[in-house]
């Protein structure tokens, strides 16, 4: 009834190189401030995302972990003559989404507004940036919420494993700290700490990505008012984390299913052979269904609901991490099969079909990410923070077309060494030997 011939005919539609994947306009391009814009008038909204470079949680003092998180939570709790309620009401009543967050490396702000409310939205953002009130009352509320969130997370196995993984991979490094703060550090953060961190924030280099219903001139006018002191102090360098020695580590926890993260060193986005590594990762476990790990571990053996590999990029380190889970009785089998696949990819390499389908996916799916203004602004900000060029996607596309099997095999040879694997588990595994047990989650109490 369904004509297969047609299916196969369609499968080989050629994918041609496009003229320009994204039409990004560079409005400012200095070390102090970069502004990128994609105009789109299909919906009357504007999304802006920006980052103060290097102003993330890595700057938290050891005894005041959570400082930058708390700063991000309190900056939208009242500014200028508007107290917390008045400020939030002004946002909510006019459909303006405005929030701040801190990653390990950067301090992020986002605004999402109807274009008819743009004046108000950027005025409120300006107030939050230049004149946050840090009222005692608001600080206490945000402190209490962070402590509650931390206590709730302490029963969430995924969070617990992420916390543990962070401490193991970044032992002795700035990143080992808990960005969300600890039960003892959060109460130590004072109003003065927040004010000091805020002052430094405004002088850092800033990266601004805007998408939606706004002109070049309007965008520039808003940006210039918002960031008058940006880039007056440079970003402090961060040392690269040393990848730890291979080990099998367990946090014993009485749950029926063990969670696991397996980590290896990974490539930088600026690595000249990055696209080859991208293809390698896609074939190994980045592609979800159809990847080798998903095929073997889930589809053929039913050992897990999901297994994924992905690259993690930070200013101070790059990793390849593989995450999955399986019942306590079969987690060892899962880890062993994963190692077999890692070794097979490294030793036997890929075949031309693997390459063709990976390239087809990585090229074809790029545009799926551009279906809304927040996705566009988020993507542009990511490029800027990785210091990638404005035509990065076009260059990547060209590199994907040129890519050969040997380049991917070289990437596998370089990155997929299972002898270096650090395996971190949380649960009660019965079929896997561990070298080291950790009984207390670091940087929580």
């Amino acid at each position, binding site marked *: 009834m369904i004509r297969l011939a047609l299916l196969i005919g369609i499968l080989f539609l050629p994918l041609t190189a496009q003229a320009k994947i994204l039409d990004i306009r560079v409005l400012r391009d200095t070390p102090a401030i970069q502004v990128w814009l994609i105009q789109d008038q299909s919906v009357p909204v504007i999304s802006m995302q920006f980052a103060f470079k290097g102003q993330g949680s890595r700057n938290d003092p050891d005894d005041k972990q959570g400082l930058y998180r708390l700063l991000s939570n309190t900056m939208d709790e009242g500014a200028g003559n508007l107290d917390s309620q008045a400020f939030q009401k002004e946002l909510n009543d006019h459909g303006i989404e405005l929030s701040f967050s801190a990653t390990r490396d950067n301090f992020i702000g986002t605004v999402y507004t109807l274009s008819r409310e743009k004046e108000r939205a950027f005025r409120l953002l300006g107030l939050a940036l230049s004149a946050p009130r840090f009222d005692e009352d608001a600080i206490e509320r945000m402190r209490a919420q962070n402590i509650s969130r931390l206590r709730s997370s302490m*029963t969430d196995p995924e969070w617990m494993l992420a916390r543990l993984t962070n401490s193991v991979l970044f032992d002795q490094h700035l990143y080992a700290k808990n960005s969300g703060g600890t039960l003892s550090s959060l109460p130590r953060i004072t109003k003065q700490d927040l004010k000091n961190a805020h002052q430094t924030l405004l002088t850092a280099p800033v990266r601004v990505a805007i998408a939606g219903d706004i002109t070049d001139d309007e965008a520039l006018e808003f940006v210039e008012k918002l960031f008058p002191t940006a880039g007056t102090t440079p970003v402090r360098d961060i040392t690269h984390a040393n990848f730890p020695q291979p080990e099998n580590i367990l946090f014993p926890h009485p749950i029926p299913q063990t969670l696991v993260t397996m980590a290896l060193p990974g490539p930088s986005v600026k690595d000249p052979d990055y696209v080859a590594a991208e293809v390698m990762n896609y074939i190994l476990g980045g592609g979800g269904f159809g990847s080798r790990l998903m095929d073997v571990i889930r589809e053929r053996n039913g050992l897990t609901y999901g297994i994924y590999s992905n690259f993690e990029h930070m200013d101070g380190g790059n990793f390849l991490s593989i995450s999955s889970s399986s019942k306590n009785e079969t987690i060892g089998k899962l880890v062993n099969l994963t190692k077999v696949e890692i070794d097979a990819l490294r030793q036997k390499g890929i075949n031309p079909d693997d390459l063709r389908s990976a390239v087809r996916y990585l090229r074809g799916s790029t545009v799926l990410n551009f279906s809304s203004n927040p996705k566009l602004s988020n993507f542009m900000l990511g490029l800027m923070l990785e210091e990638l060029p404005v035509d990065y996607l076009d260059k990547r596309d060209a590199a994907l077309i040129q890519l050969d099997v040997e380049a991917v095999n070289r990437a596998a040879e370089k990155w997929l060494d299972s002898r270096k694997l650090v395996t971190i588990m949380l649960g009660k595994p019965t079929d896997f030997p561990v070298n080291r047990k950790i009984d207390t989650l670091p940087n929580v109490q």
Partner: protein
Amino acid sequence: MIKYLSIFFIWVFCAASPSFAAEKLFNTQSTFLKNGMQVVVIPNHRAPIITHMVWYKVGSADEPQGDGVSGEAHFLEHLMFKGTHRIPAGEFSKIIRNIGGNDNAFTSWDFTSYFQSIPKEYLSLVMALEADRMINVSPPPQDIASEHKVIIEERKQRTDNDPKALFAEQMRAALYNTSAYSIPIIGWKNEMPKLEWRHAKDYHDRWYAPNNAILVISGDVTLEQAQPLAEKYFGILPPQKIPAHVRADVPNFPAPVTLKFENIAVQQPVYMRASLAPSLVTNHHDAYALQILENLLSSSSASRLYQDLVVKDKVASSVELSYDGSLRGQGNIWISALPVDGVSLETLQEKITATLRRYMTSQPLTDEEIKTAQRRMIDQAIFARDSVVGPAMLVGQGLAMGLTLDQIENWPRDVMAISPDAVRRALKDYLDPDAENLNVIHGFMIPQNEEKK
């Protein structure tokens, strides 16, 4: 958004644009195939991409009751990726990846949805694949066996590993008591091992047919382009008789129910309150009033509940009210709150009760507050259009649970038409702490202290 309209109408929409309330939600285009399958297109031409979804008007609440097995709706959803007579097991997703697309599926109590996001050139391919598996699903035995293990791992990951999830599951079971909504979609832990292919197959044979399905396509396409393809691939599938959906209303029980879960794994005390409410399908008027109420009481930290309980009374560190009216049968309202240090869950419960009582007496909701909430909701509808997947999700879900396309499209107009009195009445009818007909379930999650271990 309005590019597909005849040129003669464009000026009308431009002129009308300041008054958003009069606009349709998404400006969909729709038709029915001869076999009864509904086709809805949501044109959006900003990128050369399409989200293609097939929604079945059936979910876990339609599974046979009382047979000691649960989760076949969700098991079937997984097995739909395990091959047909023509497409081998596991190939479906690989074909989608090969064209640069992503695919997935999900099951709810009232509906099941399969979707692909793809470059637009491949619309006919995904239609062919979906039409094929609608009638030809036939997984090999070894794949059924491995997928059975996968869904048990899925349950462990989502629920069994997490005390909060286990408690939420029990709260829901208590709330929906005699209704099939009491059963988790994935199935009960002790009933999932008994699932076999025949359970999924029976369910498939009973419910999967074109006249019980909706095709929703969002993105760079028009109905004019999609309809011939839909006729070609889905239009040839035979319709069949579809049984009625039975949704039992929960009877009114006389004794109040409180669940207390004291557990060593719990670190943060939590208070939860669940109660029954109408849904968009059972009573759309009151459902709109409840959506307004939800927005007014709990949409930001400037909202009433947060201001009263977190800012003024300082008994909670957070509080949230959520209303779920997206069900074919009875809907539900949840309030959850975390106490600040030194405040007991009982005190927090009393404060929430007292606060709700005040909203019905000394601090009534004002007309101004209600109108502001309505305007906020209309603005949110504009943001909803800034997406390709989002509108397809909203339209598909609404149609699959039993709303008409007109009801969905006229949501902005109908929400604006709700009077302030109707909102105040909804508060009284569905959130009055002294009402005896709402089957309220109170839940306490309590950290077990070390000495008691």
